[in-house]
């Protein structure tokens, strides 16, 4: 799973919203759990690479800290 157990639901929702708006993570339309988690993992890797974080594909505290920073609303990857 791309999400560590220690991350709470609210943070997961925030992360999904971040990746949806800024890294073109598809919306919840796909209800295939496995497909969804691989897509999220891929987008997480893109975001971690962009910010020079350790590229793990998992939602960890370091990645969450960057997601929580105030920023510009334009996507980081060409939408």
């Amino acid at each position, binding site marked *: 799973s791309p999400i560590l157990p220690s991350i709470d639901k609210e943070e997961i929702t925030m992360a999904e919203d971040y990746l949806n*708006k*800024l890294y073109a993570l598809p919306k919840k339309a796909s209800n295939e759990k496995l497909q969804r988690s691989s897509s999220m993992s891929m987008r997480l890797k893109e975001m971690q690479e*962009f*910010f*020079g*974080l*350790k590229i793990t594909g998992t939602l960890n505290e370091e990645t969450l800290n*960057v997601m929580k*920073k*105030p*920023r*510009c*609303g*334009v996507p*980081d990857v*060409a939408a």
Partner: protein
Amino acid sequence: YSVFPGNYKWKKHDLTYRIENYTPDMSVAEVDDSIQRALQVWADVSPLRFTRIYSGVADIMISFAVGDHGDGYPFDGPNGFLAHAFPPFDGIGGDAHFDDDETFAFKSYNGYNLFLVAAHEFGHSLGLEHSQDPGALMYPNYVHRDVDTFSLPQDDVNGIQFLYGPNPDVNPDKPKPTPPTTPDRCDPKMVLDAVTMLRGEIMFFKSRFMWRSSPFSSTVEQHLIKSFWPQIPENIDAAFESPFDDKVYIFKGQKVWAIYGYDVAQGYPKSLSSFNLPNKVKKVDAVLYDEETYKILFFVNNKIYSYDEQTRRMDKGYPKPVENVFLGMTGKVTAAFQFKGFNYLFSGSKMFEFSSYHKKLFRVLSNNYFLPC
């Protein structure tokens, strides 16, 4: 730098802008000034020129809005997304929207500086995408900078000149200051300002930046110092961590700041004399905290002052020549830290490794030994 795919750029150099409404956070004059200076940043280094209009449709329409404001990209309340802008094309292209659920500020720290946010958004309005360079104005995260000394970073200059070329009106007799660049940790000639531990990580300071290196992972993150501690100066002289009080002390000139996590401790900056250093000492070159003896070693030119953290007194018999304490250390020490029982003294682009107990020289390494390329 990065540009929008598909050649999104203005086909003309003379652009118009219009401020449609205002935020209650600032006076009209402050908003006008911030917007004008934010556009001037780009005009200074390119052929682009901006003219303000007060009615009709401008190339760059500027407005403050909250929540869903009809462009398909609703704002999200305080913090989070501060603003957004559209690349050059007809209609909404070039327009910049600012989230008025934020608190915008003209000069001070309490709020997001409108000039900085606007200058970034106008980069998008002109065709630039986000940059991965943490020192760039087009870096996506908001970073507070000193707006009085602001100068467009080189990465952004390269981006806008890739799209539009340089400013043809530069007066060769009055060249602009060279834009600030982002230091490269792989540069073999780089000289670090300071190095310190910080809760198990190693922090390397250089000009406006710091690198964070965790001994347990291979990644090294680079950040603007002010993205962590807006009040801390750039180009610092020295730094050390005191596990005793869980603080990192930052030195620049005769001033000392104390950092506790993300916060700057109350009552700082203090003067060097708070460490019992004599008044004749105007600056320190490096500081090393010895975890075995609780001594703080201040390197001043080629001398060492030893301060006992427990008694809060300077030890007798100091200052001593550096070479008498660290045999073989002849150059000026520019940074120092202790890690896993070894003392690391930086001089120029070299790092000298001493055993902390015997103070014997073990190895001479390159100064990015802990900053893998």
